[in-house]
């Protein structure tokens, strides 16, 4: 399996203070990578740099063999990178159905979209995603009326609707109840293999449930990388996570 995303010496600095500091990271096609690290480690910033939301101050982002830094956000998305935000971003004034409809980007051209109506969207794919996100009986509700967990699932559904080659998920279980987190890990297990995912998470139970390889970020640098058992016994990692107690208790 080939390399899908490569970060080379990725750097973001405010004045002299580097928030992301010469970060090197390689994501292979089809893998599910968890990105963990304490608050302020630079996880969200890394995603911002990949997706063009923030301008990098050094290094390169190579996606599918081509450098993508410098492209506009929507151009990067069209190359095949989808993103779920840390603070769930859905269209609160639109129905759940309309949210998914908008996410289904058959053509980005406004004039072609004037001739496009809802029923012509890809029904099969739409149904699959509705089933996966469990929002079947919510389709005609305004997204603003959804519960927090449902909002997260809707956004995950929207990102999936885009059918991107790489999915970046920033804290998909944030604010979820235990029950909801469980359901979310079911969703992610089903995505595994079929999609390439980078998941930022604080909830270690969740990470343990879904992770293959884990990358630990601290102060903008890569601290450790490897499978769960290796990372959680790494003394450097144990140190940044609540002293010697290790990541198992940090959530």
């Amino acid at each position, binding site marked *: 399996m080939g390399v899908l995303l490569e970060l080379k010496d990725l750097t973001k600095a405010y004045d002299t203070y580097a928030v992301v500091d010469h970060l090197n990271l390689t994501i292979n096609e089809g893998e599910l990578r968890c990105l963990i690290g304490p608050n302020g480690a630079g996880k969200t910033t890394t995603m911002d740099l990949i*997706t063009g939301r923030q301008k990098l101050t050094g290094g390169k982002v190579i996606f599918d063999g081509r450098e993508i830094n410098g492209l*506009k*956000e*929507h151009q990067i*998305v*069209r190359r095949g990178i*989808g*993103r779920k*935000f840390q603070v769930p*971003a*859905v*269209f*609160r*004034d*639109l*129905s759940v*159905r*309309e*949210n998914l*409809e*908008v*996410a289904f*980007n058959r053509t*980005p051209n*406004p*004039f072609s*979209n*004037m*001739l*496009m*109506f*809802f029923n012509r969207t890809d029904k099969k794919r739409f149904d699959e995603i509705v089933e996966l996100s469990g929002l079947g009986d919510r*389709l*005609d*509700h*305004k997204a*603003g*009326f959804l519960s927090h967990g449902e909002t997260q699932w809707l956004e995950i559904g*929207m990102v999936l609707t*885009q059918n991107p080659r790489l999915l970046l998920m920033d804290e998909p279980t944030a604010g979820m109840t235990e029950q909801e987190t469980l359901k979310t890990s079911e969703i992610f297990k089903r995505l595994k293999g079929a999609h390439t995912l980078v998941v930022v998470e604080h909830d270690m139970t969740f990470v343990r449930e879904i992770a293959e390889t884990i990358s630990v970020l601290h102060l903008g640098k890569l601290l450790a990388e490897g499978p769960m058992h290796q990372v959680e016994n790494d003394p450097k990692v144990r140190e940044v996570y609540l002293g010697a107690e290790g990541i198992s208790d940090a959530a």
Partner: protein
Amino acid sequence: MNGQSSNIYNDPKAQWFAYIVLFGVLALIPTFGTEPFQLRVFSSYAVYAMLAVSASMVWGFGGILSLGQGIPYGLAAYCMGATMQMQFQTPDDPIPSFMLTNELNELPSVWQPFWNTSVGLILALGVPTVVMVVFGFLMFQARLAGAFIAIMTLAMLNAFYSMAQDLQPFTAGFNGISPPNAFKAFGVEVDPYSSMLYWINLGVLALVTLGSKYMLQSKFGTLVRATRDDAERVRFLGYSVAYYQIVVFVFAGLIATLAGILWVMTQQYVSPTAFETPFSIYMVIWAAVGGRHSLFGAIVAAIVLNYLQTELADISDMWQKAWLLILGGIFIAVVLLLPRGLAGMFEYLMGFIKIGGRNSSSTRVSEN
């Protein structure tokens, strides 16, 4: 309230039906033996209604708080004024009288194209459109939003106002241009006091409203509303937000452009008042009072508020002067008590009506 739509208000078929009824009823007005003078007043209301639809599209649905809808409106009006003025001039008497009093003894080159009515009409449509495309491009590429848009459009509007005032030899300044004759095309004279003009105005109003409605129900419309909600999210679904915003901005500008053309046909008059700040703010107020998410509401509010204004002005001078205060009061009351305007109140009332035999889950949330 759970946001689900089982309300007939949200039924697209019922919405189209409501529009047909509205325009059907309005079309009957001249058949009631309405006086010509009164008819011309109604013709101007149709123009105001178009401006309300324009504001509703750009701000209500697009979330772009433009206080500059007077720009395309005024530019089109001046082009139309020039066209009608030149219809009156002859090769023996080629220079409009206001130019003579401003000591011009030759027709300025910017006025030359208006000799030809078709060219004049093309300019009336084209000039405002080009201005809106360029202006929109500059604003939306720079990702301006919210209050910054309001400030930029207002500044631009005022620049045009000053130009119309100051370029007196070309625009007749403060006095404005009053073409002596009604507009003529294809050998037909469009009498401002006629039912014909009323039906033309109403027809164009219906066309732009139903055209807008159609667009709002397409995926384009859903995207425009999505942009209003969260532009960043739209961007991260792979769409160029600026492109969509420019298109709505220009489209709403085109509606105001048509309104400007028809205004001059109706009033035989154009002056810098077309670029006045309060007038462009009125348009937004009409849309807000009607309900910013309803074209129907915007039309009704524009007609009712202008009717009120005319009636009050007829009572006494004092009432006319108090109008701004009254309108301000209505606006504040709506913002505080009915944030979704008259349409929102109507939607609430319609919610009490049960739709017999309809499977509510088959209807969908759809703004009017």
